[in-house]
């Protein structure tokens, strides 16, 4: 068998338009639109599967289809895997496992195995693709017209100005004006021509409707109706960022702060007219159309029955082997753990409820190491309370929950200090550098205080620490404000929201969350609810650094709401009716963990004065130490951080990073995320998981029907799976799936970033966020028996696709025996791991991570604790 063996599973025709029916743009757009990226405006960053378009295919097949569609890489270079093998991170047993799961015959497996260590520097290169080598390429290769260079700058300018959310001073659209009408207005009602639409044929075409224009232009430009669909798709994929943005806005106009009426159909019509005008101009009205060009052999064609994926088996097996090696590191550790007999639990001194986020994985470990009698829990960081939130400083309400939920409630923040006047909207002098001020004001400013910026710039660069004036991260909320949580009337707000929650609604939400995480008894005297956010400066991707379960916002309002509700006497009464008895002495305290600075802010101190919590001082002290250790653990990834440092120096260093305007990596976010574990903390408490695990608390004993697990998974799969896959694909092909390097990014219309002033919007994650990421799919370990999980999975609905097609892997860990079963669409497969491999052991986190610059396998702590 040849080394370049390729598996070619057949895929059904991706478009089912009967060829003889007339071309219908609406039905064509319906199946074309799902190829576009689903990333919205940059102010909210919602992680999602980059390849959602092929999620209905098995993982490897979907990736291969996408590669042929977008012209992207599917795997890491072969040598990367081989190096990992040399370093011992890819184990032999995993290679064998991957071969055995490759659905090849024995002889084929042997042949493949023999070729695994060959050199192949080009095997991971992207294939010939529709986006790069389709029929639109003929313009360049046949008649030397670079349509992209002619049309894109003009088209992007029009789109950018139409959609702009506040950068330009003059906004383009009139209220409720559609994109098409706006272009027609500018062309027909202006005294100077809008180049190149002043070309007579294009000018006249604008009198027609977009539908007609599309038909006419396609006939003239393409000619053959069989190629229309492909031509449009190629045109949209030539600028996926803008097409995707328009599609997202069309689907959900409220995603913009200022509503804009725009549809894919309109932008297609405008772009086609621009192309027609440019072609007329370059080649005369009788320019040859696409149909007349000879097609190069191998040009991908949609009409030939869709795209046939070709999977490089060698890379696929290597990739699966890498994933299985990494996954089995955790599975071995879980299996090795003796199932402890449930002890009668003593009441812990304090309990802390964290977000599920993988960045909280290490802080929980450090906190428990510092103070063993603190118990920690994990839950999705919106803490089960979904609402729109409008803070004191916020111009607009924002959703504080995963994007799958549409909240109905609005919570506003108000100030308890009466003497603070409402913020004036006039610009202060300290902010003047944000508006460009071209004319006389600019003349005045540059003449007078311009020189002062030399000092400011020097200060910011040489002594980072003073922040950009007046920009506060949401996570640094003042603790003197108040949330209006309790609903006073049932009247809807002008926007149609309920203002606050009723007591029953509060109790519903609290009970839901407490049951999810299995905290229904044994309440400690203090329960600290810790949300997280991240502060950074000079970072347009700031939303991607905040809480993924809050749609890219810091979860502070949710934590405050949770604590307030749980402290409320009437709510507690309602809860006790439902069997959750919170002792009167227990206080809930809200806090927010700043993941980039490793700092914690405790909210509502005035409430604490009324109800002092005795253990809080000890908790704060433990937390302080834990944060410093955490900072040091994180610093091991920062090459330019001072090495051989103390915890304090490391902590100062990470704080400085977040305030330096020249630091493109305030933190590495979810880099190297790998595991998601839903189960009791007991299961993972003795494990060092290198900040790679999303941890959700769950009590397997209270969930005999799998309902709670289904609720948890319906948040874990899209949120954690989305984060995982977005990191994975942005890392594997940063130029196609990711946003490229941050350095030349230019903010366009508050919608996104582009390279230069006339580039396409970049989707996905920038290189500086994913460069150290080890791209592997998420392993979700569920501490529940496979029988009950079958019931759970049946309840998952469309999310089952993620599991069946292996976009995430699921393992069941039996709560009593710790037997492991791997899920696949065919059923549960018992996981057998070689006995010979031992889980590395250590005493403290410190000993494990010190001096390490790569990812670290799961370690087991040798310690006995209560």
């Amino acid at each position: 068998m040849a080394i370049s063996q390729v598996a070619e599973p057949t895929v059904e025709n991706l478009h089912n338009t009967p060829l003889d029916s007339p071309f219908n743009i609406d039905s064509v757009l319906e199946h074309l639109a799902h190829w576009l990226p689903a990333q919205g405006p940059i102010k909210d960053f919602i992680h999602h599967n980059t390849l959602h378009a092929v999620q209905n295919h098995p993982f490897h097949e979907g990736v291969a289809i996408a590669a042929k569609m977008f012209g992207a890489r599917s795997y890491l270079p072969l040598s990367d895997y081989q190096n990992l093998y040399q370093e011992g991170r890819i184990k032999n047993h995993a290679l064998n496992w991957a071969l055995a799961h490759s659905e090849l015959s024995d002889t084929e497996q042997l042949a493949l195995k023999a070729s695994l260590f060959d050199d192949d520097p080009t095997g991971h290169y992207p294939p010939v693709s529709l986006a790069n080598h389709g029929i639109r390429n003929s313009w360049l290769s046949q008649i030397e017209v670079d349509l992209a260079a002619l049309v894109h700058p003009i088209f992007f300018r029009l789109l950018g100005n139409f959609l702009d959310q506040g950068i330009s001073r003059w906004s383009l659209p009139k209220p409720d004006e559609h994109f098409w009408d706006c272009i027609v207005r500018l062309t027909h009602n202006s005294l100077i021509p809008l180049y190149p639409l002043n070309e007579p044929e294009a000018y006249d075409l604008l009198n027609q409707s977009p539908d007609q224009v599309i038909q006419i232009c396609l006939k003239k430009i393409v000619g053959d109706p069989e190629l229309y669909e492909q031509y449009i798709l190629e045109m949209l994929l030539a600028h996926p960022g803008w097409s995707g943005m328009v599609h997202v806005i069309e689907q959900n106009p409220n995603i913009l702060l200022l509503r804009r009426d725009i549809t894919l159909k309109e932008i297609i019509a405008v772009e086609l007219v621009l192309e027609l005008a440019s072609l007329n101009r370059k080649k005369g009205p009788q320019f040859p159309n696409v149909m007349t060009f000879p097609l190069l052999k191998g040009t991908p064609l949609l009409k030939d029955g869709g795209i046939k994926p070709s999977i490089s088996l060698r890379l696929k097996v290597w990739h699966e082997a890498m994933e299985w090696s990494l996954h089995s590191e955790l599975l071995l550790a879980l299996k090795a753990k003796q199932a402890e007999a449930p002890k009668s639990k003593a009441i812990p001194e304090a309990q802390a409820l964290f977000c599920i986020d993988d960045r909280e994985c290490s802080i929980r470990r450090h906190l428990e190491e510092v103070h063993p009698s603190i118990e920690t829990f994990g839950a999705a960081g919106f803490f089960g309370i979904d609402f729109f939130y409008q803070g004191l400083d916020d111009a607009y309400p924002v959703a504080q929950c995963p994007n799958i939920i549409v909240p109905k409630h609005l919570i506003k923040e108000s100030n308890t200090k009466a003497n603070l006047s409402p913020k004036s909207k006039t610009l202060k002098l300290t902010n003047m550098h944000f508006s460009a001020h071209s004319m006389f004001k600019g003349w005045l400013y540059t003449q007078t205080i311009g020189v002062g910026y030399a000092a400011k710039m020097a200060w910011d660069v040489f002594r980072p620490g003073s922040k950009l004036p007046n920009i506060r991260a949401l996570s640094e909320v003042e603790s003197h404000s108040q949330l209006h949580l309790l609903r006073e009337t049932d009247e809807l707000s002008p926007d149609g929201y309920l203002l606050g929650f009723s007591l029953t609604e509060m109790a519903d939400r609290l009970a839901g969350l407490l049951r999810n995480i299995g905290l229904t008894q044994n309440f400690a005297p203090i329960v600290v609810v810790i949300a997280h956010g991240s502060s950074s400066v000079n970072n347009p991707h700031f939303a991607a650094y905040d809480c993924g379960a809050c749609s890219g916002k810091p979860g502070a309002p949710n934590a405050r709401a949770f604590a307030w509700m749980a402290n409320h006497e009437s709510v507690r009464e309602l809860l006790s009716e439902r069997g959750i008895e919170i002792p009167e002495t227990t206080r809930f305290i809200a806090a927010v963990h700043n993941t980039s600075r490793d700092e914690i802010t405790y909210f509502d101190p005035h409430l604490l004065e009324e109800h002092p919590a005795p253990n809080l001082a000890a908790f704060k002290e433990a937390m302080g130490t834990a944060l410093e250790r955490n900072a040091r653990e994180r610093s091991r990834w920062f090459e330019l951080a001072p090495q051989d440092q103390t915890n304090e120096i490391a902590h100062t260093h990470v704080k400085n990073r977040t305030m330096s305007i020249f630091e493109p990596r305030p933190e590495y976010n979810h880099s190297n995320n790998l595991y998601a574990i839903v189960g009791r903390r007991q299961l993972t408490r003795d494990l060092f998981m290198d900040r790679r695990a999303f941890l959700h608390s769950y009590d397997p004993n209270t969930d005999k029907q799998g309902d709670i697990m289904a609720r948890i998974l319906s948040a874990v799969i899209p949120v954690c799976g989305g984060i995982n896959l977005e990191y994975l694909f942005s890392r594997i092909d940063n130029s196609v799936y990711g946003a490229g390097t941050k350095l030349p990014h230019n903010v366009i219309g508050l919608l996104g970033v582009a390279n230069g002033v006339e580039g396409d919007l970049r989707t996905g994650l920038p290189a500086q966020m994913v460069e150290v990421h080890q791209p592997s799919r998420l392993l979700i370990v569920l501490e529940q028996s496979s029988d009950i999980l079958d019931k759970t999975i049946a309840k998952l609905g469309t999310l089952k696709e993620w599991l069946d097609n292996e976009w995430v892997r699921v393992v069941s860990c039996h709560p009593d025996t710790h037997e492991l079963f791997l899920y696949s669409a065919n059923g549960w497969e018992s996981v057998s791991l070689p006995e010979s491999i031992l889980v590395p052991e250590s005493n403290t986190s410190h000993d494990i991570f010190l001096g390490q610059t790569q990812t670290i396998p799961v370690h087991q702590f040798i310690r006995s604790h209560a």
Partner: protein
Amino acid sequence: MNGLILSSLGLPLLGFLLIFLSHNNEKKIASISFWLSHAMGLSIILLLVVWAVAGFPQHEYEWLTLYEVEGYSFPLLFYLDKIGAVYLFCTWAIFSIIVKYCRYYLHRESGYKRFFLTIFSFVFGLNVVILSGSIDILFAGWEIVGISSFLLIAFYRHRAQPVRNSLRAYTIYRFCDIGLLLGSWMSHLLFHESQHFSELANLFSNPEMPPASNASLWLVSTLILIAASGKSAQFPFCFWLPRAMEGPTPSSAIFYGALSVHLGVFLLMRTTPIWSYHFITRWSVFNIGLLTVIIASLSEKTQSNIKGKIAYASITQVGFMFMELSLGLENLVLVHFLGNAFLRCYQLLVSPSIVVHLLRVEGSTDSDFHLPDQSRFQFLPTSLRGILPDILKNTLYVFSLQEGNLELLVRSVLWTPLKRVGTLINKTNLWLKLLYSFTGFALIGVLIIVSGSTIQYLAFPVSILMVLASLSAFSQKHSPFRVWNAIGLSSSLAGLAVWLINPTAWFDVLIFASGIVPAWILGIIVLTKLLKNDSFSNSPFVYRAFAETQPTLSLLLFLSFLGLVGFPISPAFLGEDLLLSHASNHAPWFALPITIAFVINGIAAARIFQRLCMGQPNELNTVDGHLFKKRV
């Protein structure tokens, strides 16, 4: 003080060389750039202190004379005065900030070494410009700044857009070099030995006796003004500046926010005595500034991206500086320059913060667009009153959106006609070409014999051929060899023409040829090696990315490109100056064709270099045996 001038110039050059010789090791490059940027800073500060202690003199320093023949000398001449001091201070401040900034900002970036190399060569060029004592030296620095700018815009050479935009900026630079080249030639012609900046003012001190006629002063002022407008992105060249924001943000900040964009202002200040002598030229400087202010501030209104907005705001302020200069407010301009440079640099550096700022601080994001006073339309008939404001509004918006259509204007006036002629030449059959040129020669030869004049007039057809060869190179897309040979031919014809004009200047022509011919030959060799087994003409428009697949050959191609365009590392730079000076003495008309040829050759050579060396390597998995491998 002289030593300090030299060390301020030498240290960035040393930095460049050290980085060039070091391996692509981030730590090492960072420490070299750290130490040398601070050493340079120290030297600049000491220089300024010494200069201040000496009582702010207008200090001139002639280091050595590079070349001297009768009636011509090329001294390495440096000059420091108030203007230079302000610019030098600004360079030091911004450069040391940017170097420190980039240490972290560019961490792990694949082009780390390339970036610092270009930044150092930029600063070297900048210091040469600032400290130059004559137009010739200024021109050398000017070229270095231009090439570094060209390289930095195309820093992300994998993408076609930065590469295209860097060529766009380079063509403008190159075109404006016409201004500077001819300007320097005219100053040779007009002021003879006294082209020292230090002596310019004295020349004009006697209002009764201007050093030259008004017409020639007007011409030289216009040339200088063209050069200044191009570099400072003034009317009609505003459009290139926002499009140049393609490199890493700090490089955009230092080049297009702070330093490079103010070089036009510097040039004008250096040559104030020339252009301010007559009110017409003053008035044109004022008007250029005014037009720029109007167009750029309108264009800024509809920029929906932050860097473009800052670029236009900056252009507007430079327009104000032009106006202030024309009013003679030199000190005000210096303050204005400092303010604008620091402010725009800072704005660009923090431009990524705009999202947070607008969302969380300003809140209000909609900005409406009204014509201020509707009442002024009252006199119109009712039917018009309804539509006219709307039409005006649309018109204004379209004007602003298309940035005053300056790019179309420049392209259709400057480049399209040249390209047409070139295409025509390329279409003509080789034999026909030979026939035409032979007939031309014969005719002129007959004329010379008949009229009994000298052989000198043969230079006339030769220079026409030279321009035609350049144009042919300019519009040739398919064969790099033809472009290269056409450029070489054009340069050789330039030498031939000068020799015909002045047969005694054979040695100077030899100096010129010693720069051009090796570069030409080296280029041919490199091209042959690069394009072995390759049918280039089958694949128009594709960037070949040899810089990554064949780095050594690409470097050699770059060097031969520099040699061929007369970059100040090659004797051809001096040669160009010599040729021009001969032209000035014997046949002034010759200056025009030779300058045009130089400029167009430069653009054609840059394009070939880009086509071959930039772009993304062909990374395509062609397992299934497609034809694409050859094409892409």
